[in-house]
């Protein structure tokens, strides 16, 4: 982000209306969000979350093995 004051939009071009790049960005973002939801819901990305890697469905994640003294910040 620039340190100085924001330039007047009128000096940089038309301020009214939604710029083309915003529409493209918005469309791409919406597409990616939908894609991520589809991947998670369809199960193609596996069971999402920490339990996905656990053979017991994540139960082991909740109880640390004995002797593990890791402390979470």
């Amino acid at each position, binding site marked *: 982000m620039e340190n100085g004051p924001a330039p007047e939009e009128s000096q940089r071009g038309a301020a009214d209306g939604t710029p083309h790049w*915003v529409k493209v960005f918005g469309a791409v*973002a919406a597409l990616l969000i939908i894609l991520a939801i589809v991947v998670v819901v369809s199960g193609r990305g596996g069971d999402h979350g920490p339990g996905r890697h656990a053979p017991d469905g994540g139960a082991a994640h909740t109880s640390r093995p004995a002797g593990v003294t890791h402390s979470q910040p």
Partner: protein
Amino acid sequence: MTLPLGLRRLALTAHIVCSVGWLGAIGAFLGLAVAALVSDDIDLVRGIYLAMEVSGWYVLVPLALASLLTGLVQSFGTRWGLFRHYWVVFKLVINVAATVVLLAYMQTLEYFGTLARTSSDLAAFQSPSPLVHSLAALLLLAVATVLGVYKPRGLTPYGQRKQRSARSR
């Protein structure tokens, strides 16, 4: 409220350091993820997952939060504002989304960290998940960096209203 020039420069420097530092840390994380995925040395892989967990909590999360905080200071301390320009809004959304996903993903890294302390089964570690997440994060933060450098024009409806009211004064 607009900050004095000296403070604005200090805040900008802090924001760039935190944001680009976050991007660089994810680059290093990506390298670890690739190494863990392709290596068949279980000791190396376990060490990598431990390093991922530690660097996640002590490097990635602090840098993400610092990037968000310094970005907010930049927004409120300059005339750019937070919701006046589309590029600022997009950067904010990217930063918040990446931070939320990172905090959620720390559970997975903690799981792998715990596994690394107890398991010698190489198959248990062969997950593309860290690679996929770090690639996505790298892409998102690269886009945010480009937005911050190029600052494409475009006022939000709120920004247009503010500009009109400023002109009418």
